[in-house]
């Protein structure tokens, strides 16, 4: 079987701070990491490979420094790593990004063989859009299953897989044929502590670079110019100010006051 994981290198959002004076983010020194959700996608793919045989490929779109993310992916047990890197991608929105990754994946399929399950994290922690995965799945015209928390059964003969996904009201168990596209939650698995030979292989194996020259990616669908959405402005939200202390003669009176104050909010939620 062949599993292909789409990953993104992101700044560690937990370490990004706001400079309220300039209204910008302080990114200096903030490390670049593999998007945390994507790591669970890699883990899932590697475990399926261990169970059913085959191989795991991974692709990451980004600048040359994204090679670090791919090296890390390989140290988790990935067999083949591809870096999709080209200036023509600069400023791509989710539609253009999903195009480029789709085209790159077609090239990977050409080189490594057909894919049974595509994986991605449910969203990236920098943009939080959760659109690139669904976009690629749509372009491949394969079933899309988002918010996956469990891979229950995989039948390599019948080419079917049974999954559990989160929905607003709980969970649902989905059965689908392969190839299919999964976007995954962190609960899907616990990251393993990879064996040393994986790390050594990752350090020794070069990452293959894909770009507009060695794939059939067409520049007219890539980059800022060809992205339907554009950023008009970016700003930091105002700093949270100290609010109001509610005081009263009795606990009852305090709670009554509080209720009056939050009633409008409860109303908008349909609680009252």
């Amino acid at each position, binding site marked *: 079987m062949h599993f292909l994981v789409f990953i993104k290198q992101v700044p560690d959002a*937990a370490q990004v701070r*706001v400079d309220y004076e300039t209204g910008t983010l302080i990114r200096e020194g903030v490390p670049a990491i593999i998007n945390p959700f994507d790591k669970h996608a890699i883990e899932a793919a590697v475990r399926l490979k261990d169970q059913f045989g085959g191989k795991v490929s991974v692709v990451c779109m980004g600048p040359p420094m994204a090679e670090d993310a791919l090296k890390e992916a390989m140290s988790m047990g990935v067999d083949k790593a591809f870096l999709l890197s080209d200036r023509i991608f600069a400023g791509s929105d989710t539609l253009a990004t999903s195009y480029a990754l789709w085209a790159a994946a077609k090239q990977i399929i050409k080189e490594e063989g057909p894919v049974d399950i595509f994986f991605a994290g449910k969203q990236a922690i920098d943009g939080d859009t959760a659109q690139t995965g669904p976009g690629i799945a749509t372009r491949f015209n394969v079933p*899309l299953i988002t918010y996956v928390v469990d891979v229950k059964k995989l039948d390599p003969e019948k080419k079917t897989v*049974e999954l559990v996904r989160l929905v607003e009201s709980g969970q649902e168990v989905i059965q689908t*044929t392969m190839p299919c596209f999964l976007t995954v939650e962190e609960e899907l698995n616990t990251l393993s502590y990879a064996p040393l030979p994986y790390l050594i292989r990752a350090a020794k194996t070069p990452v293959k670079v894909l770009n507009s020259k060695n794939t059939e990616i067409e520049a007219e669908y890539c980059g800022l110019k060809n992205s339907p959405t554009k950023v*008009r402005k970016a700003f930091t939200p105002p700093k949270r100010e100290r609010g109001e202390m509610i005081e009263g003669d009795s606990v009852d009176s305090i709670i009554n006051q509080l209720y009056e104050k939050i009633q409008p909010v409860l109303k908008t*939620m349909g609680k009252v």
Partner: protein
Amino acid sequence: MIKQDISKYKHVWVFIEHENGEVARVSFELLTKARELAKDLGCEVHAFTVGDKVKQFADEVFKYGAKKFFIIEDPFLKDYITEPYRDAIVHMIDKHKPEVVLIGATTLGRDLAGTIATVLQTGLTADTTGLDIDPKTKNLLMTRPTFGGNLMATIFCPDNRPQMSTSRPGVYKAIEEPVKGEVIKEKFEFDKSKYTKQIIEKIIEEGEKVNLGFYDIIVSGGFGMGSKDNMKLVQELADVLGGTWAASRKAVQSGWAPQTRQVGQTGQTVHPKIYIACGISGAIQHQAGMKSSEVIIAINKDPDAPIFEIATYGIVGDVVEVLPKMTQMFKEKLGKA
């Protein structure tokens, strides 16, 4: 990029999300917001949905000001499955060419919107918290938080239509403004062999794997709760408010709550409409996980607790005394007694 004649697109469309015969509240919120946008654009608000029996939602939809309600009804669409829903909706959008399409940023909405936008080859802005019309260009301006709420970005989609956005539930108020509307039934022939995905089981009950991000009210307990037993007080209030409960790192570390319910830097980041911090001093690590909540209510014995620096409403008091009273009184007020 595929070039379009954008002048052919008109009207603001709102997707009516439904499950088990009930419309998701966010759809009404978006209808209300859409009326504002339609006014600025000089056009109408239309609702649309697909499913098995969806005509029944017409009255509610018109109550919130939709002039037309486009539907495709088919027993095949009984449960939400991405691909047939997508194909039916794309069919309607292609035919009627709305200028704006709004979808709730729920799990379902976020699953659906990305795939529709890709088929339509148009722009989609996810998870927005602000929608405005640019008075000059009449473009839709969509504002959304990124970097865990630390940065806001305003996005627009100048050359492609429809302009699509998924919007966070609870951002807009749902206000009725009834109109006499019209139901327009569309037809779509499904090639059923094309769809190979099916739901085998639905699990409604909430397990220990809890996604705090799904709740718009979170009641959270900290070390000030004093004991594992007292954490029940937090759960009871959450139940009455129809929300869920969470805990600070210290409470989790003391074994009073599972790690899956931890809010903060090393736990989950949440942005509910109401966050009630009970006995949580509010170290900056905790604040990182909840400070973008809309309303923060803090209850703490210590008047100097840092949580009060960011709380919308602060109550100085003993949680063990305040919480049971609050649960009881809210129960009565919300008509749940």
